């Protein structure tokens, strides 16, 4: 302490010098303030419930029944603000879900409407609804399943207890189901349900005699019972659910590490691009660039050699990262290996061009590195590498398509856990090549060949 006191003037001078140096670099200061503000604002926006609009989950509906019940269900789901319903056939729906364009697809089987009402109380087979899901979107699929069940229960109950549609056979079927349930239902429950069926029978007969009746109470009663109805007897969910992964069975196909490794490899290979660009700036500063230009080499040779070496390094890194993911974390390329290779190659070319662009627009290596890291982090963030893009607001999901990282991550997802074919690699690859061309042209335009 006494040493510090005696050296205080020196200590103070050192501190002041450091502070002056830091605050005199306006660019560094801005980066150190702007970057955390931008990234913090982004995460706050996408995770803060106050800032979130209602979820708008895209779902396909396949109606193989075409009954009034399924039409009523689909109409109700279409009006639900949380869902975005698309009509499709089953093959289309499965493809759209597997490509990540929809979160789930619901397939109503033939005769769903007629058999669902009976299945409300009768034991035995229930109509089977197929739910084709995107296994990476478990939260959204759960929401879809819950909303679907709600709308089905409302529509089927309304159908079952409507005076105009309630038939003697339906009520008889329920009575038979109750009788067949045996020891599964207590005598008190049997007595209560029997009274309920008697009331429905009288309502039906009165309706047929032209008397007026309001089924709303019945519907409400039936609906409210759905939450507590035992599976063996009494009122129950009038359908069974066959959940299918759009990319195969849930357990064998989806691996969360696949998306994580896609995102992180994209991020760190872009950092490699920054290193390539900064290295070029350093080469210029150290006179190496001048020395290279003194050799009988064309500008095209100099630029192409940088692009080629950057591309090779990026490819090798990407393959090494995914090799680790495959060997250690069980990630698999379920889709096209050729497609995976194509996306790797085009992303690597894009990375090399990005590095060249950084070298062209950068002034000093130090300042350029800071700025490039911030830009890269924002691109990676918007590309869905840190958090899946589906939790972004809809406008941001659309806007993020203008960053190459989104296409790269989506492309790797498509070739790994989504298991899509080579054709699904073409669009991301084309976009990545487009960005590579854009970066390269901008770099050539702005590049300072002379010192």
């Amino acid at each position, binding site marked *: 302490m006494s040493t510090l006191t005696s050296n205080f003037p020196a200590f103070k001078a050192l501190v002041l010098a450091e502070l002056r140096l830091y605050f005199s670099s306006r660019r560094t200061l801005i980066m150190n303030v702007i970057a955390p503000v931008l990234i913090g604002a982004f995460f706050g926006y996408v995770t803060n419930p106050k800032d979130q609009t209602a979820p708008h989950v895209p779902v396909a509906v396949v109606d193989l029944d075409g009954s009034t019940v399924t039409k009523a269900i689909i109409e109700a789901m279409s009006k639900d603000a949380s869902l975005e319903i698309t009509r499709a056939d089953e093959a289309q729906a499965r493809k759209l879900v597997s490509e990540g364009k929809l979160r789930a697809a619901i397939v109503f089987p033939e005769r769903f409407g007629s058999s669902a009402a009976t299945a409300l109380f009768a034991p035995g087979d229930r109509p089977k609804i197929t739910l084709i899901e995107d296994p990476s979107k478990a939260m959204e699929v759960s929401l879809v399943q819950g909303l679907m069940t709600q709308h089905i229960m409302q529509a089927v109950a309304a159908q079952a207890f409507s005076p105009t549609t309630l038939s003697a056979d339906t009520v008889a079927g329920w009575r038979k189901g109750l009788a067949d349930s045996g020891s599964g239902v207590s005598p008190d429950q049997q007595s209560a349900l029997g009274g309920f069926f008697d009331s429905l029978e009288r309502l039906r007969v009165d309706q047929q005699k032209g008397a007026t009746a309001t089924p709303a109470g019945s519907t409400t009663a039936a609906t409210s019972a759905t939450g507590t109805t035992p599976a063996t007897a009494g009122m129950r969910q009038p359908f069974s659910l066959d959940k299918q992964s759009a990319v195969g069975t849930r357990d064998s196909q989806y691996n969360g590490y696949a998306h994580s490794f896609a995102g992180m490899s994209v991020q760190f290979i872009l950092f490699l691009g920054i290193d390539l660009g900064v290295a070029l700036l350093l080469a210029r500063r*150290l*006179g*190496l660039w*001048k*020395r*290279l*230009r*003194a*050799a*009988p*080499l064309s500008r095209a040779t100099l630029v192409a050699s940088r692009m080629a070496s950057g591309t090779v390094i990026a490819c090798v890194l990407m393959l090494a990262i995914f090799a680790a993911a495959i060997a250690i974390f069980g990630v698999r390329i379920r889709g096209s290996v050729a497609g995976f290779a194509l996306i790797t190659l085009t992303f690597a070319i894009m990375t090399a061009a990005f590095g060249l662009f950084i070298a062209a627009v950068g002034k000093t290596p130090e300042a350029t590195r800071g700025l490039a890291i911030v830009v890269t982090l924002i691109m990676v963030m918007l590309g869905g590498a840190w958090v899946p893009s589906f939790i972004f607001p809809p406008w941001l999901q659309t806007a993020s398509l203008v960053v190459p990282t989104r296409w790269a991550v989506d492309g790797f997802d498509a070739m790994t856990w989504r298991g899509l074919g080579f054709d699904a690699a073409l669009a991301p690859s084309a976009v990545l090549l487009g960005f590579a061309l854009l970066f390269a042209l901008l770099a050539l335009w702005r590049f300072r060949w*002379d*010192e």
Partner: protein
Amino acid sequence: MLSATELNKSYSGRAVVSDVSLRLEPGRVLGLLGPNGAGKSTTVSMLCGLLRPDRGDVVFDDGASPMNGRTDEFKRRIGLVPQDIALYEELPARQNLELFGALYGLNGANLGRRVGEALELVGLADRARDKPSTFSGGMKRRLNIACALVHDPDVLVFDEPTVGVDPQSRNAIFDNLEVLRDRGKALMYTTHYMEEAERLCDRIVIVDHGRVVANDALGALLRHAPSGERLEIDIGQGVDCTSLLALPGVLEATESNGVLTLKLQSLASDMAPVLAWCNAKGLAIRHINSVRANLEDVFLALTGRQLRDHA
């Protein structure tokens, strides 16, 4: 071998090089001498085909020039030793040389032979596998030179190759240059150290503010210096030397820190009366030194300013 004719280069309307002409000959060393900012590096860049002059031409005797589309052929015949140490620090010395050789089209056994010869010339054969990052400053400078001569160019351009080099390495570099000169290479050596130019160069071009102020052999340049020779006499005490100016042949006389500094018309004939004057004054002479005119004097005479520390 290589001629530069009336080179001109301006940046933002400011002339950096104006009408610079010079010629490099085989087996000769041409010095380009001038203070910092005189336009030496810009002239070097134009000579090496790195920078296109606004006006003027750089051409080999057989016509090869960047100005007539024979840029690659032109560059292949020039080796540039830049002012900066332009090496890949993390590649071993041999791999640096192999890379620079390959840039000039060498390959296979020829490349290996040339690399070996270059390493041998600069005295780094035993460090061929070491990385430059482990080298001293002088060794890096020597490797820098080796990279420029690995493709066996006709012309070697040294842009201040001794900046920050210790005296031992500097001498080693001078030895390298003399070997290359003896092998018939045309050398150009830019520096702002007049001693280096005096030691190495057969002909010296002095530039200032982008213009050539002198272009001649060393002996002829020295004749630009004001006539007379300097004599320094250490007398160990102060003295009024006004009466010295009355002696025949004494052009200037000053005293500082016990040292008399005189400019004489002729050292041989005018020194004796000065020594007699000292005896008459009872001054004990401790040391006598005669000083020849140098390039500093020439530069001063030509520009009215000092060469050193002049930006």
